[in-house]
């Protein structure tokens, strides 16, 4: 929990009802990369895509007889055509909480709603979760629904798969995402592939979640970004949350999804504060989030880098640039519609991510954009990623491995000056 103290989250009463976070310290005062205020003067209202869950559920498709009856029942307007402005959310009241509380709220609501949802992981029960996401769950739901597992990631992930195949909906917590490297066998072979190799007979509606990313001098092994490792596994969906609003929404959507979903949280974002709606909502798992519309350049980002981008945007806007910022949220699959529309508008793309340069999400995204929207590009796609270096412990070195706001500013300026 000491990790998330780096973020000073204080709510600010502003006209824009949905406030991400604001911290009084500017970047330069805290060289280790605190995030500063995200309330951008150029924004009048925050436009947030709120997509309600598609009511269509896939028919339970197990058993040889139903295997051939694969009839998708889908909502055809896949992308929300109307934007709910933040004003709507604000008008209904809402309540303010921190990101880890939003995760907890989402998880708790789903566990109340569906008695087959079970949380498994190390210290999720009596300890309340090492990041307090499951605080109070053992008392409320009992030791079996908030299952404290022994330290055996591969086996308890496999156990969750077996439970999912036989009717439960497990939420597997990796205390740190990096620990899930030990569970790679089960995540790849069973979570991802078992539905396919069983010919569609078994579903694995599990959620794998946990904090990852570079924290505050946690050392190489606790600072890993597993999204790049898992992205090739067929059959998995991956989403990354970045605000309390989308954290709760994505958590709920992931739990309700029949697919196995990996929800990437970030160690340094747990104390972000935001006002979120009181009513039930979920976020679409496949959609990206338009954070700031603009026309000069498309900046694609996710998770913690979203906040660095917003911080950089403050400076960019004051210098007269107009960046369009999209939080891609869905790391696999990519929302090519939102991204594509943006590329068609701005013709320049910069990807800002925390993944390693080699084989990261940015690498895949670059390829996907080039493949689909080459004709709309006026310049090569820029990509700012972390260095291919094991994250060093020492502060200055750690800072150098991760993208910093000043680098984002320079990159945008360079791309827009050509």
């Amino acid at each position, binding site marked *: 929990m000491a990790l998330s103290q780096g973020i000073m989250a204080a709510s600010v009463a502003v006209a824009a009802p949905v406030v991400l976070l604001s911290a009084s310290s500017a970047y330069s005062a805290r060289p280790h990369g605190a995030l500063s205020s995200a309330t951008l003067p150029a924004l009048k209202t925050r436009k947030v895509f709120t997509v309600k869950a*598609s009511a269509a559920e*896939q028919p339970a*498709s*197990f*058993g*040889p007889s139903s*295997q051939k009856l694969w009839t*998708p029942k*889908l909502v055809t307007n*896949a*992308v929300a055509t109307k934007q709910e402005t933040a004003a709507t959310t604000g008008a209904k009241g809402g309540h303010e909480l921190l990101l880890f509380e939003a995760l907890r709220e989402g998880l708790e609501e789903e566990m109340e709603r569906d*008695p087959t949802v*079970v949380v498994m992981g190390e210290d999720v029960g009596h300890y309340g979760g090492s990041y307090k996401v499951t605080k109070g769950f053992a008392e409320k739901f*009992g030791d*079996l*629904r908030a299952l404290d597992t*022994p330290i*055996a990631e*591969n*086996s*308890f*992930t*496999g*156990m*969750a*798969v*077996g*439970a*999912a*195949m*036989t*009717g*439960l909906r497990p939420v597997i917590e990796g205390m740190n995402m990096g620990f899930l490297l030990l569970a790679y*066998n*089960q995540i790849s*072979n*069973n979570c991802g592939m*078992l*539905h*396919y*190799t*069983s*010919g*569609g*007979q*078994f579903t694995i509606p599990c959620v794998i979640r946990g904090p990852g990313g570079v924290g505050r001098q946690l050392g190489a092994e606790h600072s890993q970004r597993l999204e790049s490792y898992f992205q090739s596994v*067929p059959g998995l*969906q991956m989403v990354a949350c970045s605000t309390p609003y989308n954290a709760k929404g994505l958590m709920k959507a992931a739990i309700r999804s*029949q*697919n196995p979903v990996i929800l990437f949280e970030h160690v340094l974002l747990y104390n972000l504060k935001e006002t979120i709606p009181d009513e039930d909502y979920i976020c679409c*798992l*496949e959609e990206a989030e338009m954070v700031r519309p603009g026309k000069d350049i498309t900046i694609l980002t996710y998770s913690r880098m979203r906040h660095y981008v917003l911080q950089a945007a403050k400076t960019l806007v004051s210098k007269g640039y107009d960046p369009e910022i999209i939080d891609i949220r869905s790391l696999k*699959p*990519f*929302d*090519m*519609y*939102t991204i594509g529309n943006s590329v068609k508008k701005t013709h320049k793309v910069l990807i800002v991510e925390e993944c390693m340069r080699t084989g990261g999400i940015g690498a895949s995204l670059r390829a996907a954009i080039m493949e*689909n*929207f080459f004709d709309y590009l006026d310049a090569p796609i820029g990509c700012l990623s972390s260095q291919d270096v094991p994250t060093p412990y020492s502060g200055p070195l750690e800072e150098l491995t991760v993208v910093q706001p000043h680098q984002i500013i320079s990159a945008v300026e360079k791309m827009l000056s050509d």
Partner: protein
Amino acid sequence: MATSLATRTVVPTLSSSGANRKTTSGVKGTVSKIALKSSFVGCKVTVPTAPAACVVARHSVSGKVTASTADVIEAKPKSKADDLLVTRDEALDVYEDMVLGRSFEDMCAQMYYRGKMFGFVHLYNGQEAVSSGVIRLLKKEDFVTSTYRDHVHALSKGVPARLVMAELFGKSTGCCRGQGGSMHMFSKEHGLLGGFAFIGEGIPVATGAAFTTKYKREVLKDDNADAVSVAFFGDGTCNNGQFFECLNMAALWKLPIVFVVENNLWAIGMSHLRATSVPEIWKKGPAFGMPGVHVDGMDVLKVREVAKEAIERARRGDGPTLIECETYRFRGHSLADPDELRNPAEKAHYAARDPISAFKKYILENGLATEAELKAIDKKIDEVVEDAVEFADESPLPVRSQLLENVFVDPKGFGIGPDGKYRCEDPDFTAGTAQV
């Protein structure tokens, strides 16, 4: 009240000449006081107890006289009828299952060499006593996980031979639509949770299925939930972390699971004795807090007795059991294995202990069925296997549109395309010609 139970002599069932690899007769040094609930026949039983006695005690702690080794051996005088461990119907069911397993695997070998199936095919010849001995006791709702040597487990669990053979041929009528293959047999209807290619991978899955039973009883308050899970795996797996991790969790939460080790002494070309510091796998059960049972896996009735106890134990909520079946595979590790490392003398020794011929002998000697009836079963199975091959031959291969169908349960997972629609709404998508 604690009763001491020594290792017993083998109660003669099938082959009194059957020399077990390890003699189970007489009192060995490792005897401990145990609470006797079970009556394992012909096997060593070690149940976790208080750390105390390694002594054959004549008196329990409470002072009552308890059975000693000698008493146990002379325990019950019984009539001839009681000697039999199976009824006629049970015997015929088990016999048919074993013959089906053997014939099917032999047919697989033929088909493989004729180019009807490809890849890695691992045959079960010689180990039929384990599959039939354990799985025929299970209910349809019970769960089984297996390894890559899973054809016979699938057949014993009730998956029709046609579906298994079609799967092996890669046809869309196979139990997994041709997408799984030899090493990934699944059946939701029959509770077969796989078929896994990596060893050890299926053990946590079985543990999870057992967890679901416990969850249904205790959280969802479903008193009818009593499905037992059985995990089959080999000697090589018993050096793998997942094995130990699952023994721990199963015992910790008293999950209704039975761990069945098919110790055939060889992991491809690695002898069990060269790979394992303590080769007695059954000993690892008590280390984690569950009974470790050691049984002759070439003797279907012994396996059945042991399994019956273990399954009942699990079903009534007393927790897991580890059963080590000493068995042997007559063929190589897979059809690609030249099988040059194993001593021909060893192979001959076990060929003489063929579980099917031994059981046939038992049936005939005890008058459970006539020779003619058994031959009729053999013939029937031949027809079943022939029919399976015919069915598989005539079945269609999967079409292109099948490629993407089962990647996701919810195909929205393929994402949103540049046109704003979900990719799976694109008609070319199911045709398999769309770009993803």
